[in-house]
């Protein structure tokens, strides 16, 4: 089984939905350790992505992801703009002219995107950033792919890994971004960016089931 283009489009629509419903929750998380705009920013960014989707839905996966990245760059506003924007632009580079993705190709896509985020933000594991979710997720997908697990099973376990990873960010001290100004006081709070990654993975799993 593979993930087809319609499911990718569906995924992005679902991201638009979840960042609408979770906007205030994410902004609340960001209020604790940041500048209280993460939910607003993600909502604004993905609303624009959704607006553009109908006009590009017939293009290949790479094109759709690249477009998503460019829209996020321009519309998110905070550091998440360049970071998620870079994720999708890099993810687009390995999915050019694809109409569907196998599990291994999906792993390549997420891994490439995560690599872009790390290069852009220069975060290390344990810095309390979205990388603390992207990396375990990419690793989980790789293992599932090597074990030839079905795509849906792989996505479910990736989501479980992501949930745990988000919980782990609570114990971390932020070393990047606005939260790092708080030093030790950033411990005890869940990272908003990491939480957004979890939401995106959950939406991907849901879209894959359709």
């Amino acid at each position: 089984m593979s993930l087809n283009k319609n499911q990718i489009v569906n995924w992005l629509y679902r991201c638009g939905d979840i960042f609408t419903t979770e906007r205030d929750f994410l902004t609340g998380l960001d209020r604790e350790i940041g500048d209280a705009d993460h939910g607003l920013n993600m909502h604004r960014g993905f609303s624009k992505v959704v607006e553009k989707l109908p006009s590009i839905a017939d293009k290949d996966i790479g094109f759709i992801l690249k477009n998503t990245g460019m829209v996020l760059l321009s519309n998110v506003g905070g550091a998440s703009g360049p970071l998620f924007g870079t994720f999708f632009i890099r993810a687009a580079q390995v999915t050019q002219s694809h109409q569907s993705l196998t599990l291994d190709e999906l792993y390549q896509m997420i891994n490439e995107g995560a690599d872009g985020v790390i290069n852009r933000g220069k975060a290390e594991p344990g810095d309390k950033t979205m990388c603390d979710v992207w990396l375990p997720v990419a690793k989980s997908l790789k293992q599932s792919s090597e074990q030839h697990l079905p795509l849906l099973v792989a996505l479910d376990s990736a989501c479980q890994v992501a949930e745990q990873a988000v919980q782990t960010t609570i114990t971390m001290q932020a070393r990047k971004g606005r939260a790092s100004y708080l030093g030790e006081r950033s411990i005890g709070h869940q990272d908003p960016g990491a939480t957004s990654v979890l939401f995106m993975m959950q939406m991907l799993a849901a879209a894959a089931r359709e």
Partner: protein
Amino acid sequence: MVNLVIVSHSALLGQGVGELARQMLRGDGCRLAIAAGIDDPENPIGTDPIKVMEAIESVADTDHVLVMMDMGSALLSAETALDLLDPAIAQKVRLCAAPLVEGTLAATVSAAAGASIEKVMMDAQNSLQAKRVQLGLPPQDAPVPAPEILSLPDPEAQSATVIIHNPNGLHVRPAACLVDALAGFDAHLVLEKDGKYIKPDSINQIALLQVRCHDKLQLIATGPQATEALAAFNTLAAENFGEQLSESIPHQQTVAEKISISGLVLRYSPVTFSLEKSVSIQVDEEAKRLKIAIGHTLDDLMHLAQLAAEKYSADIAAIFSGHHVLLDDTELLDSACELLRTGHYSAEEAWYKVMTELSFQYQQLDDAYLQARYIDIEDILHRTLGHLKNATEEAPVFQHSTLIIADDIYPSVVLQLDVSTVAGISLKGGSSLSHSAIIARAAGIPYLCQQGDTLHSLCNGELLTLDNVPVSP
């Protein structure tokens, strides 16, 4: 030419900084573009890489574009913009680590004066200096490297590391040897100590790096003759940068004997040159005058080095060759010319400002030996000002055995004194580690410094006897 792009989370802040910067602009030497805020009326705070990219493109028809940023996502957006830009444009762009407001103002002034991208970046990064001084804080650890040259990891860079054995570290003379030895190689060279980087083409930069005995010094080299430059560096280090270690001047002078000296008091001070502003300033004319005066001063220094070699020793001569290297530093002239280009300074004022700043930097160093080098700077400054005013002064000549009383005394003055008529030198300030003191010792002239206001009441022509004056062997 360098144009600037201001990136800020806030459109108001971006425009405000732009407004401040434009006040500093004379003519059209530097153009500004602003990428600030995002297009969301309800939440306008944020940065947009696409806007940054467009802003860069709008001023890219020049040699370089320097991007000034406030913080956080402004940096990420600017870096993303670099990825999105046409590589031909992206390679002209540098991101500046300076604080947004101070840095942008400094960069604007520097860029408008036609400075190179390296200089503009360095000025921006040093822009907090004035604020620190005003608030009574020590100046930031100088010097700030031009990061565009120094931070890019170059896989082809070679390096050599040496340990310094010179007891007084790399003071002016060894530093001059180093500058000399590394000049002329077709290579890009960077000198590193404790994470601080400088270009080894300036004796002042090396001095301000404060290289001391036992310090580790690294030379990083790239380019066609990198290997040769590193070899020269290693050779020079093995020769202790041209210094005979046993002959180095000790920090603490050992007091061998004490004598009593007497002579007629002469209160001496060098001529003071007025820095009054001329009514109308022709920038080019001033720059030309300054260059000519520096040329004359360089000639003088050659003669002084010769005189020192004849009168005393090669070591004393090296002091003035050191002055020659120090003055023959295009960075000093460049800085002065930059000030001239603002149109607000005469050649005298610009040179005074540059050299006084350098003297101040030396005085701020925590190495007593290097601190005492301020008098060399002031000696050179004085000589150049004299040439600018066509008023070179002769060293004082005395009929009788004379005790010179002064606030401080230039090394070149001590050199030119006639030993037979000078009984001693007593200074209100000064330093026993200064080159003036070193020359006085070589000449056998008793030299007292830091005597404070006790000398205040003395009149010219009085016969004065000083007891217990230490004389080194």
